[in-house]
């Protein structure tokens, strides 16, 4: 269960990647993948992060794990400012945070057996060896509903869903408190998605895990998350509880995103209002001035083209970055 204690926090985090060009590979511009993102996740809570491809979801997840040296801002974990941590100290705190990848095909080393893949973190961190090691690997396999005898098989002998289970077991090996799930089900078939989502939710209860759940599918995110953050072009545009986001979405982009997702029930879906966006997501190298979203927004006014809206609390735990939303 979620407590009030904050486990992870980002404060105004920016992550720019340089664009190099010319003979001397000089820097000509920045890709502003993450541009001033702030949020927190409470202990035991699941925060969903949704947005379209290229909006900076994955980069945000990696900033939380300190897989990058961020351009500016602060990253806190269990109250420690870990922004500048390096070496042994970073390695030790990283045991508490893990990552589950999107693609179960490329994230497992094809030349290692399932058992070696799952047990590797235990060996790297020199936690156990010998008989105890094998017992822990078997226990991890059972946790993700695989059988211990499968430890000797190689990734290609498993189906997509089973590989994703191996990826999850590897993430659990160090008994982390916090896991970043980066699109963990979007590469899987529908019937297998339900299996993996249910598994992740069960593990969360049993092991008291905290998730940052990154996905583009808002229905999956709503199902698993307590709160949801909507991202657009490197910025968070709205953040609130998952029920509130569906019942009372305020940012025009959240509205469009919600209406773009059809509900698998023809009677219900055909009564919904549809908002169609025009155009594509702009380039994060030269984001539009003012509000990032204004070129695609059907409500845009002069102020939206000039000033950048701030993420404001409009009551409860509902935050929106839009000029047109007032308290």
């Amino acid at each position: 269960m979620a407590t009030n204690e904050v486990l992870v926090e980002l404060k105004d985090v920016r992550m720019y990647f340089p664009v190099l060009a010319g003979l001397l590979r000089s820097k000509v511009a920045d890709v502003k993948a993450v541009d001033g993102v702030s949020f927190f996740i409470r202990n035991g809570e699941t925060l969903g992060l949704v947005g379209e491809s290229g909006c900076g979801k994955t980069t945000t997840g990696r900033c939380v794990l300190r897989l990058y040296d961020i351009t500016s801002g602060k990253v806190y974990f269990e109250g420690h400012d870990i922004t500048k941590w390096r070496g042994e100290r970073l390695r030790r705190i990283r045991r508490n945070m893990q990552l589950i990848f999107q693609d179960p095909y490329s994230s497992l080393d094809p030349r290692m057996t399932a058992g070696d893949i799952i047990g590797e973190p235990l060996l790297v961190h020199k936690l156990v060896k010998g008989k105890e090691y094998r017992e822990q690997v078997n226990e991890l396999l059972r946790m993700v509903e695989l059988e211990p005898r499968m430890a000797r098989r190689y990734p290609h002998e498993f189906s997509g869903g089973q590989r994703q289970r191996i990826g999850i077991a590897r993430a659990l090996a160090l008994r982390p408190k916090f896991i970043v799930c980066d699109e963990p089900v979007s590469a899987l078939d529908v019937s297998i998605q339900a299996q993996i989502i249910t598994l992740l939710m069960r593990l969360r209860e049993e092991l008291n895990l905290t998730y940052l759940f990154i996905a583009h599918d808002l229905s999956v995110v709503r199902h698993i998350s307590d709160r949801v953050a909507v991202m657009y072009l490197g910025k968070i545009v709205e953040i609130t509880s998952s029920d509130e986001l569906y019942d009372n979405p305020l940012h025009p982009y959240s509205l469009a995103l919600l209406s773009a997702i059809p509900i698998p029930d023809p009677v219900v879906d055909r009564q919904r209002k549809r908002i169609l966006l025009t155009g594509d997501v702009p380039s994060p190298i030269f984001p539009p001035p003012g509000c990032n979203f204004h070129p695609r927004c059907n409500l845009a006014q002069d102020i939206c083209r000039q000033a950048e809206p701030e993420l404001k609390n409009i009551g409860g735990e509902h935050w929106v970055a839009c000029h047109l939303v007032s308290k």
Partner: protein
Amino acid sequence: MGLVGESACGKSVSALSIMRLIPNPPGMIVGGEIIFEGRDLLKVSEEEIRHIRGNRISMVFQEATTSLNPVLTVKRQLTESLELHRRLGKQAAHDEAVRLLKLVGIPDAERRLNDYPHQFSGGMQQRIMFAIAVSCNPSLIIADEPTTSVDVTVQAQLLEIMNNLRKEFGTAVIIITHNMGVVARYVDHVHVMYAGRLTESGPTEVIYGQPRHPYTIGLINSVPRLDLRRKRDLYIIPGLPPNLARLPKTICAFSPRCKYAISECREQRPELEQVGEDHYAACLRSKEIPELVEAG
């Protein structure tokens, strides 16, 4: 019409068969008939099928990036079929190409005509695919997972364009997808496939309202729904889809994963039977299914 099912259930192969695009060898259409506008496409000559393909029936593939030719301009790819099938002159074909690009919502169409596919984003490339598909006013468009690789807001735009084209030109559309939401929103008549066979077919409202095949029930209930506040448990279809090469012919292919399976299901393969008006299901227990679901 919508054709739904999971990966490797035979959706795409069915569609490619209609176009007679199954590579031979190794593939071969071993039986049956494909009736299109009153003719059996399996009996027409190679010459005739080429005339039908792209002209009367056209196809939109999943990955626009790999389906468009990277070394030809968009103009060349659009005008090719216009000149070939509709016998338009150079200028007429050019004008028509501009009109088509505008139709699918590409801004600045006149100028962008001379660009190459890589200069467009994924969503824009898929729009170009749609423009090529409708260029010869086909009577049937087959869209094979047309929006799986694009973002949700772009997906909504593309499907809306396709829906408008359908209304405007009266074109029949087959959408192949695994997304039950897309089916609910855009499809009139659903065919559900499992392990290479049709398991259920009927009007969309009926399929979602009173499904008669356990696989259909599983498909509909295994996806999280955006509109449900209560965190219900997802319905889980246990296990994996079968290996089509080792599939026994004498059992119901879904029986190993079916919670309503009885011993008879493992002794014979069910055929499609009528269970309602325009509604067919291939399940031995299809008549009892509503009661069984009610009982839990």
